[in-house]
C-alpha cells in the first residue's frame, strides 16, 4: 500500500480541522424548522463512502475484495440515491402561504 508522507498526513489534518470547524458553524446556522431535512441530507452525504467502495471494487484485485467492495457500493448507493430523494420530498412540503398549493411528488 502506498506510503503517505508525513506532510500528506498533516495536510489531511489541516483539511479535517478546517472542515470540522466549518461544519460546526454551518450546522449551528441551520433554522430549527429544517432539522429533519438536514438530518436526511447529512445522511445522504455520508454515502460519500462510495468513493472508497468504488476504488476497492474497481481495481480488480482478489475475489473477496471485489465482493466486499461491490456490497459496499450497493449499500452506499442505496444511501446516496435514497437520501437525496427523500430530502427533496421533505423539502417540497415546506411552503409559505403565498406560494400556492400545487403539490408535486407523492
Amino acid at each position: 500500500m502506498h506510503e503517505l508522507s508525513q506532510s500528506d498526513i498533516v495536510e489531511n489534518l489541516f483539511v479535517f480541522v478546517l472542515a470540522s470547524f466549518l461544519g460546526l458553524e454551518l450546522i449551528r446556522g441551520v433554522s430549527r424548522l429544517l432539522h429533519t431535512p438536514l438530518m436526511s441530507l447529512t445522511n445522504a452525504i455520508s454515502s460519500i463512502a462510495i468513493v472508497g467502495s468504488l476504488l476497492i471494487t474497481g481495481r480488480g484485485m482478489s475475489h473477496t475484495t471485489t465482493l466486499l467492495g461491490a456490497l459496499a457500493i450497493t449499500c452506499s448507493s442505496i444511501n446516496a440515491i435514497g437520501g437525496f430523494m427523500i430530502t427533496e420530498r421533505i423539502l417540497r412540503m415546506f411552503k409559505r402561504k403565498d406560494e400556492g398549493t400545487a403539490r408535486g411528488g407523492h
Partner: protein
Amino acid sequence: MSALNAQHYVYLVGAALFVLSIKWMGQVRTSRKGNWAGSLAMVLAVAGTLLPGHYGLSAYGWIVGAVLIGAVIGIPMALIMPMTAVPQRTALSHAFGGLAAGLVGTAEYLEFAPNIPRFVMGALAAEMLLGYLTFTGSLLAFAKLQEIVSTKPIIYPGRNAVSMGTLIVAIVSAIYMTINPGHEVALYVLMAASLGFGLFLVMPIGGADMPTVIAILNSYAGLSAAAMGFVLNNKLLIIAGALDGSSGLILSIIMCKAMNRSFANVLFGGMGQTIAKAGDAGPAREVKAYTVEDAVTMLEDARLVIVVPGYGMAVAQAQHAVKELATVLMARGCDVKFAIHPVAGRMPGHMNVLLAEADVSYDQLLELEHVNPLFPEADMAIVLGANDVVNPAARTKVDSPLYGMPILDVDKARSVMVIKRSMNTGFAGIDNDLFYLDNTMMVFGDAKKVMTEIVADFKRINA
C-alpha cells in the same frame, strides 16, 4: 491536463458543493438548492473517481451492477416511505453507510496487510471500528423505531461493564493492529467487538431516545468516512466526513439541551429508571373532562388560538385535521398560530415536517422564544397530543427530571384545551400538573378523531 489533475479539480468542486449544500440547507428559501448541490457533489465524487486513467479502475461490470442494485432498492424505498418513518429510514441508512465503511476497511486490510504503513493502519482501524459499530447500532435503532423489537430499554445488571468491556477490546485490538498489521486474527476480534459494541450501545436506550442516538451515530458514520479519507489520502472524503461528523454532534447537543439532559444520561438510559419511579407516585386528583361540543363552544368566540402539537399528533396523523380546523377558525376571523417546541415529537423538526406536509404555511409556525410571550394574549391554547413540552413542572419542581427544560407556557393562556387519549404520561413518564389546573379542559380521545369532530361541528354551525 492529465486524468489525475482533472480528478483533483472535480473533487475540489465537489467539496465546495458539499459545503454550499449544508449552507443552503440553513434557510427554507435556499434549501432545495442545497439538496441539489449535495446531489451534484455526490455525482461529481463518483464521476471523479471513475475518470479513466488515474486509478485505473477496471471491474466496471461489478461497479455498474452494484450501483444498479442500490438504485433498485433505494428509489422505491425513498418513494413509498411515509413521512412519519423518517427516523427509521435515517437509522437504516446509517446502518448501510456504516456497513459500507466497515467493508471497505476490511477489504483494504485483507488486500494489503501486512504492508500497511502505521498511520494508514491506524486510520483503517478507526474506520472499521466506527463503521461496524454504526452498522449494528443503527440497525438496532431501526428495529426499535419500527417496533420490530421492543422499544423498551433492555436493562440488565452489569450492562455498563459489558459494553465498556467490549469497547475496550475493540480499541485494544485496533491499537494492536496498528502496531502489528500482520496478525489477521486482530481484524476479526476488532470486527466482532465493534459489531457487539454497537448493539450494547443502543440496547439500554428507550425507543423515544433514539433520535439523539441516531444523531450521534450520524456523527460516527461521518467520522468513519473521514477516516477512510485519511486511509485513501482523499480530501473529498475527509471534508464530507467532517461535515457529517459535526452535523451529528451539533444536532445531538441541541436535542440534549432542549431536553435538559446530558449525553451520559441519554446513553446510559437514565430516563428508563425515572419512568418506574415517577409513574406510580402521587394521590389521585380530579380533572375536568369535556366533550367535543364544549370544545366548540369555547372556540367559537376566540380571537387568538395557539395550537401546541406534540408526539400524539404524529401518532394520530392529525396534522391534516388540525390544518382544517385552523382554516375554519381563520375563516371566522380568529388568528391561529402553531407553537413548535424544539423537542416536540420524536425527532428534530418533527412537527415542522408534519405540518408542512399538511400545507400549513411555515410562517405560522413559531418557535419557543417567539411564541411564549403570546400565550397571555391567547384565548385558547390547544395542546394536541403534547405532554412533556407543556409540563409546568419544568419551571417549578426542582426535583422533577424535567426541571430546567424550557417549556411552552400554555398555562398562561386564558384557557387550555388538552386533547389526548387518557391520563397516561408522555415520553418522560411524568405526571403533568397542567391537566389539573382550573383553566384546563381535557378532551379525551384520539387527536385526529377529536379534531375531525370539532371541524365537522364548526361546519354545521357555519352552514
